[in-house]
């Protein structure tokens, strides 16, 4: 996420899939990184690592947050530093258009 982005909309949608047990912590980190809101859906899945205890803890959560690109970069950096090494976490960023962009910046 470090390299600059050309011609992109002002708002980024960051989607994070992680084992359900860490939801509270993850949301805390999102707030700290500057997210003003998020949407959570429960999910399940498989991945190359498959080291989570999800089976016993209710699978995964899928968290979406609309944020500025700067915040998106901060979130991805935080994930890379503290989350990817330890937890079953997958994340991606997409450019989206929203109404009332200011709500998310």
């Amino acid at each position, binding site marked *: 996420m470090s390299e600059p982005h050309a011609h992109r909309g002002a708002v980024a949608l960051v989607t994070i899939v992680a*084992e359900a*047990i*860490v939801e*509270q*912590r993850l949301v805390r980190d999102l707030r700290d990184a500057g997210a003003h809101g998020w949407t959570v859906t*429960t999910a*399940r899945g498989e991945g190359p690592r498959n*080291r*989570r*205890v999800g*089976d*016993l*803890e*209710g*699978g995964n959560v899928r968290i979406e947050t609309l944020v500025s690109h700067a915040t998106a970069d901060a979130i991805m950096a935080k994930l890379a530093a*503290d*989350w990817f090494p*330890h*937890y079953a976490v997958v994340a991606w960023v997409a450019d989206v258009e929203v109404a009332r962009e200011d709500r998310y910046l």
Partner: protein
Amino acid sequence: MLQIAHIMPSMGATDTLQLAIDNLLSPPVLGFALGLLAVAIGGDLRLPDAVYQGLSMYLLLAIGLKGGVALRESDIGDLVLPALAALALGVLIPLAAYLALRAVTRLGSLDRGAIAAHYGSTSLVTFTAALVFLDASQLAVEGYVVTLLAILEIPGIVVGLLLAGRGMNRGVPWSESLREILVGKSVLLLAGGLLIGVLTGPVGYARVEPFFGALFVGVLTLFLVELGVLAGRRLPDIRGAGWGLPAFAIVFPILAGTAGVIAGGATGMGVGGAAVFGVLCASASYIAAPAAVRLALPEANPGYYLTTALGITFPFNLVVGIPLYLAISQEVVG
């Protein structure tokens, strides 16, 4: 029919083998077997996640309630020594597990501490299966055993996390992880149920007994189908682990269980109560502990601690352990 249901087992009560067979053929154990079978033939018997969560909340609250009512009935004086014994074993068992694992496996301290946390804590379902088993065998069990369950749940986890030592996740202090467990569903419901039971007493309990009491064994059966599936999925992971870990997962519970039975007898518990104490010590947690370990020791490999606790030790205790600890208790205590 019901008559028979209540007389027959009591007849066989002295004959432990008979009891073991009754146990093997009890709906909960057969439900667990059905879950294993389903996995074996590539089928799927998983409950919807929401139902699974709801049932486990029911079981925790129900066992807490029942225990609280019984605790209120029982003399606190009798509880002191067993409670102290529980605390002591809550520290010693994970220590012993940690050392035993160094002897029989090549695992690092991180994974050994993680596994120790599981064996230091206890398994609610194994405990309840033991109660159902003793209930069928008509053996009296002290009212305060659920209190011992509550006492044994946490310390073992803490000791395990401490033993895992340096392996901690730098991100979050592990005290934070502990807090998350203490205010987590399983502790809150079990302790909350105990409190409600003590406060409402037999009169109040009588009004919820049709729900929290009468349905218990049936719900447990359904729940064990699910656990059978989860355990079955873990079994393949064993192969990779070599012989040390499976051996530990079977031998250690026997030793810890025996220690529990002896401690129970020594602190004045009866045959039934000492057997349950043994089950508490022998069982490995797969609800509170995995959550705590996952949060505090993310680098530890669930493939090790879940497979041993849920894949091997749980079924072993369910089928062999429970009658075994009773037999030991009848020798030692009776």
